[in-house]
C-alpha cells in the first residue's frame, strides 16, 4: 500500500493526468495471446487503475492493423501514448519487464 502510494506520487509528479493508451495484438484464443490479455489487465488494474485504455486487435481478423503498426509477431502490446511508442513482445508474464517498458519501474532496486 505504501509502495503503491509512493509510485503514484512519483508518476503524478512526472506526468500528471497521463492516460496510457495500449494496443494489444493477439492471435485469437491461442494460449500466449490469452495469457497476454489476462496479464495486461492484471498489471493495468494494479498499477494504472483508471489511467489506461486498452484496444485489442485480433490479427486473425485484422492483420492489416498489425502490419500498419509494424507488428510481425503476436502477442505484442504497443504503448501508443509513449513517444516513441514502445512495443513489448510475449505473453507479458514478466510483470517487472512490462512495468519497465511502461516507465513504471520502481526505484527500489
Amino acid at each position: 500500500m505504501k509502495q503503491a502510494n509512493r509510485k503514484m506520487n512519483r508518476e503524478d509528479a512526472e506526468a500528471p493526468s497521463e492516460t496510457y493508451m495500449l494496443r494489444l495484438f493477439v492471435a485469437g484464443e491461442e494460449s500466449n495471446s490469452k495469457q497476454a490479455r489476462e496479464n495486461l489487465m492484471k498489471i493495468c488494474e494494479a498499477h494504472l487503475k483508471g489511467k489506461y485504455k486498452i484496444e485489442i486487435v485480433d490479427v486473425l481478423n485484422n492483420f492489416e492493423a498489425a502490419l500498419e503498426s509494424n507488428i510481425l509477431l503476436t502477442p505484442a502490446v504497443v504503448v501508443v501514448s509513449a513517444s516513441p511508442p514502445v512495443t513489448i513482445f510475449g505473453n507479458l508474464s514478466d510483470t517487472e519487464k512490462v512495468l519497465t517498458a511502461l516507465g513504471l519501474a520502481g526505484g527500489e532496486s
Partner: protein
Amino acid sequence: MSSKKPTYQELKAKLAEAEKTIAALRREEVDAVVGNQHVALLRLREAEEALIKSEHEKTVILDTMSEHVVYRDTKMRVLWANKAAGESVGLAPEQLVGRHCYEIWHQRSKACVVCPAKETLKTSQEEEMEITTPDGRIWRIRTYPIRDANGEIVGIANVTLEITERKRDEQEREQLLADLELKNRELESFTYTVSHDLKGPLVSLSGFSSALQKELHDQLSEQGRHYLERIQANVGYMDTLITDLLELSRIGQVVGPREEIDTAVLVRDIQEELAVKLEQVGAEFVVKGPLPAVHADRERIRQVFANLIDNSLKFRSEDRPLRIEVGCQKQEGFYRFHVTDNGIGITHQYHEKMFAPFQQLDPKAEGMGIGLALVKKIVEHHGGRTWVESKEAQGASFYFTLPTEPPR
C-alpha cells in the same frame, strides 16, 4: 521522418526491438507471425510437447522389455539404451550413451571380431546371432539397420535376449527323448530276450508232457490224465502268448526293407488265403474302389490287413451274414485305409484300450488280443496312425493311414 536515412537512435531502437522479438521467440511466448498476406500460427510448445510425450511413452514401453534394446551409431557408439541394457552392466541407460558397445559389454578396446551389428553394416539387413559369453550365458542378438530419410544407414538397433535357460531346456528335452528312445529299445530287447529264453523251458515242458502222455498214458488214473491235458493246454496257451510277445517286441527291431507294394494284390492274396473260412461263415468280401501302391514293408503290411480282416471274422454277428469291406481314400499326404464290417461292434469305452497288447475284450474269442497292438505298432513304424469307429451291435470300421511318399 523515417523515410529518410534512419538516425543512430532509430537504428538502436530497431535493434532493441529485434532482440526483444528473438527473446520472445526463445521463451516460446509467440502465437503467430503476421505476414503480408496472412497470419501463420506457430504452435511451438504443442509440437514440442507432443514430441516429448511420444518420446516418453516410447521410453516407458522399451523400459518394460526384458530384452536389451540398444541403438548405436555406425561407429558402435551407444546413442540410446533401454533400462534392461543399462541394468545388464549395473548402470543407468544414460551412462552408456557415447561409449562403445564393445567396451561396455565385452571390456574390449576394439570392436569384436564376430558382431551382428558389423554384419548388419556389411549386409544392410537384419541379422541374428547366438553368442555365449565367458560366464556361460547364451544370448540371441538381433540387429536392424536404421536409415535416414535418404535411405542411408545412420545406426544399428539391436534387441538382445538371454536364452540360456531356453537352450538348457531344449538340450534337456533332447536328452530326455534320446534317453527314452534308448530305454524303449532296451525294453524291446529285454522282452525279446525274456520271451526267447522262456521258449526253452516251454519246449521241454511240452516235450516231457507229450512223452508222459505217450509212454505212461495207461498207468495214469482218469484224474491224472485230466491234469495232463490241463498242463498241455496251458503249455499251448503259454506258447502262443510268448510267440505273440516275441512278435510284438520284434517290430521295433525288425523293420524289413521298404518296397513298392500293391495293396490291391496284397488284399486279394489274403482273401484267397481266407477263402475257405469266408465261405464257411457265408461272408461277403468287398474291395471298394482301387487300392493304391505304397512304400512299405510287405510282410508287415500284410499282417496289418490280415489281422484286421481276421478280427472281422472273429467278431461277426449271429444275427446277419458277415460283410467285410476294404477300401482306401487319398488324403493330404496320406492314404487312409479302412476295414469295415457289420459285426458285433465295440462299445465306445474300448476304442482306445483295444489297441493295447493283451486286451482281450471278449473272453470267449480266440487269440491273445495281440493283433491290434501289432497293427498299431506296424502302422506307427510306417509313419501312420490307427483308430476305430464303431457302435455296439452295428459293426466296426478300423482305419489306418500310410504316407503317400516314402520317408526321406
